[in-house]
C-alpha cells in the first residue's frame, strides 16, 4: 500500500501517509483513505513522498473540502525541500499548515 491511513486511538485525528510519487495514480487510494471517516483533524505525512504534482495539490483541496473547507484542520508534515518548494509556489501554506 502506498497510501496508509490510521485513526488515532481517541478517534479524533486521521493520519494519511504517502509513499513514493504523490500524483494522479494515487487518486483513488487517497480518496478512500478519508472518504468514509468523520474528520476532526487530519495529518498528511509526506515523509516518504518523493514527488508531488499539480493533481496531488488538487487531491489535497478535495481532502480540505471534505474536512470542512475553510474550517478544516489539516496539517501537512515531513515535506522534503522539493515538495515544500512546489507547495510554496502555489502558496498552499495559506490553506494548509505545512511543516
Amino acid at each position: 500500500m502506498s497510501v496508509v491511513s490510521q485513526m488515532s486511538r481517541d478517534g479524533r485525528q486521521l493520519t494519511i501517509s504517502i509513499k513514493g510519487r504523490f500524483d494522479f495514480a494515487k487518486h483513488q487510494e487517497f480518496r478512500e483513505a478519508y472518504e468514509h471517516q468523520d474528520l476532526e483533524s487530519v495529518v498528511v505525512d509526506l515523509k516518504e513522498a518523493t514527488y508531488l504534482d499539480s493533481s496531488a495539490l488538487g487531491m489535497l483541496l478535495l481532502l480540505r473540502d471534505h474536512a470542512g473547507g475553510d474550517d478544516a484542520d489539516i496539517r501537512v508534515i515531513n515535506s522534503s525541500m522539493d515538495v515544500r518548494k512546489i507547495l510554496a509556489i502555489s502558496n498552499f501554506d495559506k490553506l494548509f499548515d505545512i511543516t
Partner: protein
Amino acid sequence: MNATQPQASLTILIAEDSAADRLLLSSILRRAGHVVLTAANGVEAVAAFRQQQPHLVLMDAMMPVMDGFEAARQIKALAGETLVPIIFLTSLSESEALARCLEAGGDDFLAKPYNQIILAAKIKAMERLRRLQATVLQQRDQIARHHDYLLNEQRVAKAVFDKVAHSGCLNAAPNIRYLQSPYALFNGDLLLAAFTPSGDMHVLLGDFTGHGLPAAVGAMPLAEVFYGMTAKGYGLAETLREMNAKLKRILPVDMFCCAAVLCVSFHRRCVEVWNGGMPDGYLHRVASGERTQLVSRHLPLGVLSPEVFDDCTDVWPMALGDRVFLLSDGVIDTADAQDQLFGAQRLQQVFASNRQPDVLFAEIEQALRDFGGQARDDVSMVEISLLQSGLIHPASLVYSDSGQSCPLDWSVSFEFRAATLRRFNPLPYLLQLLQEVHGLRAQSGPLYSVLTELYANALEHGVLGLDSSLKRDASGFVRYYQQRKARLDTLDEGFIRVHLQVTPTDGGGRLVIRIEDSGEGFDVARVMRRPMDDIRLSGRGVSLIRQLGQNARWSDDGRSACVEFFWEEMA
C-alpha cells in the same frame, strides 16, 4: 477454454490430390460438425478460398498443377491480416521439408496417416489462435477509430478555442514573442494578450491542473472574461477577481488554474504583476542587466472564494527596451537524457550571459534545445518588451450600429466617495457612456488614456495625497504603490467628481471632461513649466494629458482639471 465445450462449426477447406484421403478427411470433419470444401490441387484451393473464405485450410504439400507451398503463400496473401490457419498434411518426415511448410505460411502440420484425435485437437488449437487474432484486430481497429475520433474532437475544440484565445493581440503586437506547442491547450497551458482601450497591454499565462479535455474546459470561460473585461477598460484587480470567481464557481474542487497576469503600461512605463502559482517570471532590465523576480505570492485562480481572494498586485518601473518574461513549469522541468531538470538556475545563467536583449528569447529556446534534446509540449514562454508608447496601436473597435441614435447634447456629473473609491473602478462605465458618441470613437484610445490619467491623478495625488516625486527611482516606485494600497484600504473620506459635457458644434462636436478631487491640490504653475516630453517616472501623467487632449488646464490650485476633445461630423 473448456475441453468438453462443443466445438463451433467451421468452414474448412481440404486441398488434397488423393480422392481417397479427401473422402476420409471430409467424413471425419463433417462428423465433427464442420462444413467442408474440397480441392484437388493448389489452383483449385486458391480459387475455393477466394470464393468462400473458409476459416481453416488442410493443405497437402505435394499436389499436381500447383503444390501446397505455393497455394499456402497465395492464400496467406489473400487473407491479409485475418488469420486463416493452414495445417499441412504431409507424409514428408525430414525436418527440412517440415520447415518448408511453416516457411510457406503454414501454421502447423499433420503427418499421414491421420490420427483423428490429433486432427481434432489441432483444429481446436488453431481455432483458438484464429479467434485471438480476430479479437486483437477488432480491438486495434476500435482503438484506432476512437483515436481518430478523439483527434477530431480536439481539432474542433482547438479551432473553436483559437477563435476565442487569439482574438487578442498575441500575433499582432510587435513587442510580444512567445513559444507554445499548438496543442498546449490540452496540457492546460493558456496564453492570452490584449490591449486595454488606453493602449496598455494585459497578458495572462496560465496552467490548468490536469491534462486533456478537462484541462482545456476551463480555458474558454477564462479567456472570455479576460478579453471581455480588458476591452472594456477594467484593471487587473477587477479582472482577476472576476476570473477567480468564475473558475471557483464552475470548476470541481480539485481543479484550478495557476496564472501569471501582467499589465504593461507603455505610457506610464511600468508593469503591474499578479502571480498565483506560476514559476518566477522575470523583469529583465536592459540597461543594467539586472533581473527582478516576479514571484508567486498568491494561490492559483479558482481556489479561494470571492470573499477572501487577494487581488493585490506588484508594480515595477520599466525603461524602454526592458523585457518581462513569463514561463510555464515545463520550461524549468525540461529534462535531459539523464533525467536532470533544466531548473531555474540554468535559466538565470542564460539571462546573465546575454549581451543582446533582442536575441535573449532565442537564446533561452536554444538553451532548452541544447539541454533537453527533446521537445516537451507543455513548454510555454512569453516575452513582452516595452516600446515607445506611440509605436503600438491597439486595433480600434468596430461598431455595427448606424449612428442614427447618437446623443449629441448632454451632460452628466458623478461624485464617487471614499467607500466607492476603495474598490470600484468607474472608468469602464464612463468610457462605455462616451462610446455612444460616434464622433469620439476614433479617439477612444487617447480619450481613455486621458480619463485614466486624470482619474489616477485625482485619486493618488488628490484624495490619497501621495507624493509623485517618490517615483523618481525604482525603489521609491515600489514604495509608492505600497503606500497607495495601504492608504486606499483605509480611506474613509474624500471624493472625486467627474463632469462630462457633450455639445454639438458647427460640423461636429465637443466633449469637456472636468475632474475635481478633495485633495490638497498642487503648484500648477511649476508643473506647467516642465517640458511636455518629460519622461521621468514621476509626473508623466500631466504631460500625457496635455499631449493627447486639447486645452488642458488646472484650476482651484490643481484640485480641478479640465480637458477637451473635438470631432468633425462624419460623412
